[in-house]
Every structure is written in structure tokens, then in C-alpha cells.
């Protein structure tokens, strides 16, 4: 077991702030910390299981058609999971339902399938995808925390006020799309400056 396969995803090859992948869902859902929590859970579930599946099947997938095959496997798997959750756990679906279809097109999942799972053993794939999940979750939690705090003046998670209103006139732009680009840009610059990536 190589522990670095796990740790690299957290900082050095952080999917959002290091590899700069999966920006579409990142920009779209980081308006609230609550959304980021839901997305983190759904993302971890999908990337770990679908990449394990691809790592198991890699011997049978011809090189020429590997990308379409990965996409068929990932998209079908996510859709099946979505239908099962919707039918058997409506309350969980209420929290995670809208994030699952977004993950189907999340390029981090396909990116890890192509760059890692299709070439490496199952145990390393597990470490790699878990590390990527931690890295992705940390990134979107930090971005959504900054956006919600400055955009609404407070942090509310599942109805609990974690940080009470500290700004009397919050900058609404922070929870609109421009705010996402601003926060992402500043964080990327800081990561580069600190030579983390």
C-alpha cells in the first residue's frame, strides 16, 4: 500500500485547486456550505465505487474504446444509484438527489478512471479515489464557506445557524456566479504563491 496515493489528492494534486478539474459543479453548487456537504457525500460515493468497478473491469476494456466504455459505466451506475435512492430513501434523495446527475458529467470521475483506475490495481484505486474525494470536499467546503459568509453574512447548515449574522450588508454578488470565479481565482493564486501545486 502506498499512502502517498491517498495524500496526493489532498494538496499537491487537489482535483479543484491543483488539477483544476470539475469546475462546473464546483461553481454551481458552492453557494451554500449545506450544498457542498451534500455534494461531497454524493461525489465520494460515486467516484470510489465507479472507479473500483473500472479497475476491476480494466482487463476486458480495449484501449480504442476505453473512454466511451468508462462513460457508459459511470453514467449507468450513477443513474441506477439515483433511482434506488429515490425509491427506497426519499429523505436522502431530498438532500442528495440534485447532486447525483451533476456528478455523472463531473470530469474528475472520468479523469481518475483514465489516469489511474484503468492502469492500477484495485487497492491503489481505492486510496487514489478516497484522496481525491477528501481533496474535492475540502475545496468546495472552503469555497462555499467564503461565498456564503460574505454573500449572506451568516452560515446556516440544515436549519442550524453555525455563524450568526456578522455582516449588516452582505455582498450578494458573492453567491452569484461572479463570486464563484472571484473566490476560486484568489484561492488558486494563493495555492500557486505558496508553491503547494
Amino acid at each position, binding site marked *: 500500500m502506498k499512502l502517498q496515493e491517498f495524500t496526493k489528492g489532498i494538496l499537491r494534486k487537489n482535483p479543484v485547486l491543483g488539477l483544476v478539474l470539475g469546475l462546473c459543479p464546483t461553481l454551481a453548487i458552492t*453557494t451554500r456550505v449545506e*450544498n457542498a456537504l451534500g455534494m461531497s457525500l454524493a461525489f465520494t460515493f460515486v467516484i470510489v465505487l465507479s472507479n473500483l468497478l473500472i479497475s476491476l473491469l480494466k482487463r476486458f476494456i*480495449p484501449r480504442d474504446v476505453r473512454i466511451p466504455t468508462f462513460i457508459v*459505466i459511470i453514467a449507468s451506475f450513477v443513474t*441506477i444509484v439515483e433511482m434506488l435512492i*429515490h*425509491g427506497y430513501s*426519499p429523505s436522502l434523495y431530498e438532500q442528495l438527489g440534485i447532486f447525483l446527475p451533476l456528478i455523472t458529467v463531473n470530469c474528475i470521475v472520468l479523469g481518475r478512471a483514465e489516469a489511474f483506475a484503468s492502469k492500477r490495481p484495485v487497492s491503489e484505486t481505492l486510496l487514489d479515489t478516497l484522496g481525491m474525494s477528501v481533496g474535492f470536499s475540502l475545496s468546495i467546503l472552503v469555497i462555499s464557506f467564503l461565498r456564503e459568509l460574505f454573500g449572506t453574512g451568516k452560515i446556516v447548515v440544515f436549519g442550524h445557524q453555525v455563524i450568526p449574522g456578522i455582516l449588516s450588508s452582505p455582498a450578494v454578488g458573492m453567491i452569484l456566479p461572479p463570486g464563484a470565479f472571484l473566490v476560486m481565482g484568489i484561492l488558486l493564486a494563493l495555492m500557486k504563491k505558496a508553491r503547494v501545486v
Partner: protein
Amino acid sequence: MVGKEEVKPVAVLVITCLVWGALLGLTHSATEKRIEEAERAELYRTLSQIFPSAQFTEENGHYVCSENGVVVGYAVEVEERGYGGRMRVLVGMNPDGTVAGVRILSHGETPGLGAKVAEEDFLGQFRGKGLEGMALKKDGGEIEGVTGATISSRAVVRAVRSGLENLRGWAG
């Protein structure tokens, strides 16, 4: 001559698609009923927020709400276009034709801004109102819109109007 090397990728892709397509079909038919039931249960839960101790019966898209056999109101689901796409609004009406309550079933409005139309501060204003004055204050009515979210607020007002008109016509 087509060699084995050319056929294999095509065959694998076709088989992958067939297998996953079949799995999708199986899951769909296994969960279809449960998903429908879950959505109905969700709708009834929302209905009981408007009419707390009522029983509901559905009659072609309208809901009759009754307590011990006495009709206490009617409800209908209305679709309207908001700022962020489709918005599903549940409108409840008292037997006298005024609004009993409004709930947003789903919407795609901006979080922290337009999404505030789904909160009680805004929706509570409709309770007890008829069609008179059913417009935003800036449009000459009596409803205070959500600041910075006029399009979302107008969409809800339109939905409540059309729901109320629909229910009045239907309940006679």
C-alpha cells in the same frame, strides 16, 4: 478482411451498452412504483402543511381536503416559469374562495436571493387573500416582493393567481 483486432473493441462496446442498458431497464421497472409513491407521499406531506388535520382525495389533478366528511378546502399544483426555470407551486383554497396557503414544491431560484420566495415570510402574505390586490406592491398590488428577486416573486404571484382561478372554476 476484417481482423479480430478490429471487431473486438466494437463488440466490447456493444456488449457494455447492452448489459448496462438492461440493468438500467430492470432498476427502472423495479423502482418506478416506489418513486411514484414517494413523490405522492411528499405531496401529501406538503398538503398537510396547508390543511393540518385534513384527509385528501384526488380528483383529476385537483385535491379535495376534508375533515370528518366536511370539505375544508381545495388544492392544485401549478407550474410557472421562474428566474431559474420551472417552479412547481401548490396552491390551497378555502371554501370561500380565498387562499388557504401556498407552498413551493420545487424551484431553481438563486440560493439566498430568489430562493427566499419559498420561505414563510413571503408565502404567508397570500393567506386569506382573494384575487383583488393579488400583485406585487410595485405592480399596484398588496404583496411585498422579495428584495432583489422581482422575477421570482412575480412568478409566484402568477402561479397563485392561476391556481386560485383554476380552483374557483373547478369547485364552482
